[in-house]
C-alpha cells in the first residue's frame, strides 16, 4: 500500500516538474542555431531536396548508423532469446482462396512500393527505414497467405550482413577521401533529380535492404514453431 502511494507520488512529482518547465521551451517558434542552419544551407550543402533526409543521413548520419545498429541488435537479441525455444501452435488452417490469390498479385506491388520509398528518400517523405518495413510487410502477407512458405535464413543473413558492411565501407570511403567518416564523396547533382544528393540515396538503398531483411528475419523467427 505504502509502496503504491509512493509510486503515485513519484509520478505526480515527475509530471509536475515537467509541466512546470515545458512552458519555457517555446514550440513552433522560429528555429534557432543548428536547425536554422539546416533550413538555410541544408539543400546547398547536401544537394538533398528533403532536408529531413539530409539531417538524418548526412549531418547526423552517425546517429543513423547507430539506429541501424539498434535495430540489428534488437533482431539479433530476439533471435538469441528465441533460440532453442519452440512454441506449440494450433494446427494452422490454410488461408482462403481469396487471400492467397490476392497475395500473389499484391506481393510484387508492395515490394515495388517499398523500393520506391527508399530510392526516393532524398526527394519525398520516407526513406530506408519505412521502405524496408514496407518490404517486410510484403513478406508478412506471404507468410499469412501461404503458411508453408519459408524464406531461407541464408538469404536473409547474406542481405543483412552485406548491406551493413557496405554501409560501413561507404562511411570509411568518406574517411579516406575527405578525412571525415560518412562524408559525402559523390557529386551533389541538381536537387530534385533522382541522381542527386551524393551518397544519400546510396545509403538509403542499403538501409532499405538491411531493414527489409532484418524485419523479415524477425517475422520469420516469431512464426517458427515446433517441428
Amino acid at each position, binding site marked *: 500500500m505504502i509502496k503504491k502511494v509512493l509510486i503515485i507520488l513519484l509520478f505526480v512529482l515527475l509530471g509536475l516538474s515537467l509541466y512546470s518547465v515545458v512552458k519555457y521551451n517555446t514550440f513552433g517558434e522560429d528555429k534557432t542555431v543548428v536547425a536554422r542552419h539546416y533550413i538555410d544551407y541544408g539543400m546547398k550543402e547536401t544537394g538533398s531536396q528533403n532536408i529531413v533526409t539530409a539531417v538524418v543521413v548526412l549531418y547526423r548520419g552517425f546517429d543513423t548508423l547507430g539506429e541501424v545498429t539498434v535495430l540489428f*541488435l534488437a533482431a539479433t537479441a530476439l533471435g538469441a532469446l528465441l533460440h532453442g525455444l519452440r512454441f506449440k501452435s494450433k494446427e494452422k488452417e490454410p488461408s482462403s482462396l481469396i487471400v492467397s490469390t490476392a497475395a500473389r498479385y499484391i506481393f510484387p506491388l508492395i515490394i515495388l512500393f517499398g523500393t520506391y520509398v527508399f530510392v526516393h528518400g532524398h526527394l519525398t517523405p520516407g526513406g530506408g527505414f519505412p521502405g524496408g518495413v514496407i518490404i517486410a510487410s510484403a513478406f508478412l502477407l506471404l507468410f499469412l497467405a501461404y503458411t508453408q512458405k519459408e524464406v531461407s535464413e541464408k538469404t536473409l543473413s547474406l542481405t543483412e550482413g552485406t548491406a551493413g558492411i557496405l554501409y*560501413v565501407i561507404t562511411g570509411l570511403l568518406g574517411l579516406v577521401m575527405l578525412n571525415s*567518416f560518412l562524408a559525402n564523396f559523390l557529386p551533389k547533382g541538381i536537387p530534385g533529380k533522382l541522381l542527386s544528393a551524393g551518397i544519400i540515396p546510396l545509403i538509403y538503398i542499403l538501409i532499405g535492404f538491411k531493414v527489409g531483411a532484418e524485419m523479415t528475419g524477425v517475422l520469420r523467427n516469431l512464426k517458427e514453431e515446433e517441428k
Partner: protein
Amino acid sequence: MVNPILIIAISLFGAFFIALISPFVKRTGKIIAFLTIGFDLYIGASLALKSLRTPVIAYTAGFKPPFSINLVVEPFSAVFLLIVLTIGFLISLYYLAHPGEEPEDKFFTLLILNLMGASGIIMTGDLFNLFVFFEITAISSYALVSIRKQKASLEGGIKYLIISSIGSSLFLVAIALLYGQTGTLNIADIAAKLPFINKSVALVAFLLILVAFFVESEIFPFNGWAPDAYQGAGEGISALLAGVISKAGLYALIRLTFTLLDLPLRSKLLIVFGIMTFLIAELSALKQKRVKRMLAYSSIGQMGLVVAIFGIGTIPALKAAIFQGVNHAVSKVALFLLVGMVIKNLGIYKLDDYKGLGRKNPLLGLLFSLAILNLLGFPLFAGFWSKLSILLSTGKQGLYLLLSLILTGAIVEVYYYVRFMKILYERNEEASHLEIHLLEAMPIIAMAAFIIIIGVNPGLITPLFEKASEAIFMKFSYINLVIGG
C-alpha cells in the same frame, strides 16, 4: 593517423561479418570477436597515448560541430576507454577457452556491439549520439544477461530492461529540454550556453540525467535490477557488467554532471546517494549465501563509493575515484571470471561449497586472494594506494562524517571477504581438483600482474589519473577544445 571512428567502424564490421557468415560457417563468432576487440584495444590504446599530449577530435559527415556529430578523446575519456577496452579484451580472451553462451555466434555479435556502445558513450561529444550509444549498450546488455534463458537470467534481464528503459526515456526528455533551450546537441556547445539556460529547466534536466545514469551505474535506490542481473548472467557477462557496462554509465554520469550541467547541487547528491549505496550494498553482501550474489552486492557498493568520491569534486578526490574505479574493475572482473571457472568445472554456487578449494588448487586460491586483497586495499597492492588516496582526499576536505561512513563500509567489506577467504583455505579432504586451462586463466593472471606491479610502483599509472582528473575538473578547457578552435 588513428581516428576514434575506427573503433566504431571495425566493431560494426566484425558484427555484421558474423551475421553474414554464421549461416554458412558456424562458430566463428569467438575468433572474430577476439580479433575485433583486440583491434579496438589497439586503436583505443594508441588514441589514449596520443590524447595525453594533444586531445583527439574527429568530425563526421564532413561538417563541423555543432552541425554534425564529433568524437572527442581527451585524458578523462582516454582512461575510461582504456578500462573498458582492456577489460573487454580480457573477457574475449577468457572466452577463447571458455564455452560461450548459446547461440554462440549471436552471443559474440552482442558482445562486440556492447563494447562498441560503451566506447561510443565514452568518446562521443554529442548528447543525442550519447543516447544512441547508450541504447546500443543497454539493449545488448539485456540480451546478454538473459541469454542463458534460465529463470534467474530472464528475471534479471527483464528487470534490467524495465528499469533501464524508464531511465533512458527520462534521459531523452532531458535532451529535449536542453535542445529546446539551446538549439544545439553538442555537449561543449550546451555547456558553454549553460548561463543562458533557464534555471528551472536546467535543474529538471539535471535531475532527469542524474536518475537515468544512477540506474546504469547501479546507485541506490535505482539499482533494483543489478543483483538479479549479476546473478542470472553468465560469469563472463557479470564481469562485463562490473568492468564495462557500469563503467560506461559512470563515465556518462560524471561527464554530464561535470561538463554538461555543472550545477553546485551535484556534489551533495553524488555524495549522499553514493555513500548510501555503499553502506546498503555492503551490508546486503554480508548476508548472501551465494558467491555471485555476494560479489554483485560488493560491486554495487564499490560503484557507490566511487560515485561518492567523485562527488567531493577536488582534483585529488577525482584522482582517487578514478583509481578506485580501475581497481574495482580489475578485481571484480578477475573474481567473476574465477567464479566462472569454478562453476564450469564443478557447478557449485554456494559459499559453503567453496570449502577448501583454494587449498586444493593453489593457483586458483592465489588468484582469488590477490583479487580480494586488492579490493580490500591491502598494502603493497594497487588497491592500497587508491583506498589511501580516498581517505586522504576525504579527510583533506574535512568531510569526517563521510570518512567514518567509508571506514564503516570498508570494515563490513573486509569481514565478508576475509570470511570467504577463510572458507577457501579451510581444511577439506573432499575438495575437488579443478582443470584450469592456461588460456582461460591468462586474463586473470594478467590482472594479477597489474595489481602487483601497480602496487609496488603506483607512479607508473598515477600521472595518467592526474591528467584525467585535471581534464574533467576544468570544463572550460573541454569547451575550448571542441568549439573554440
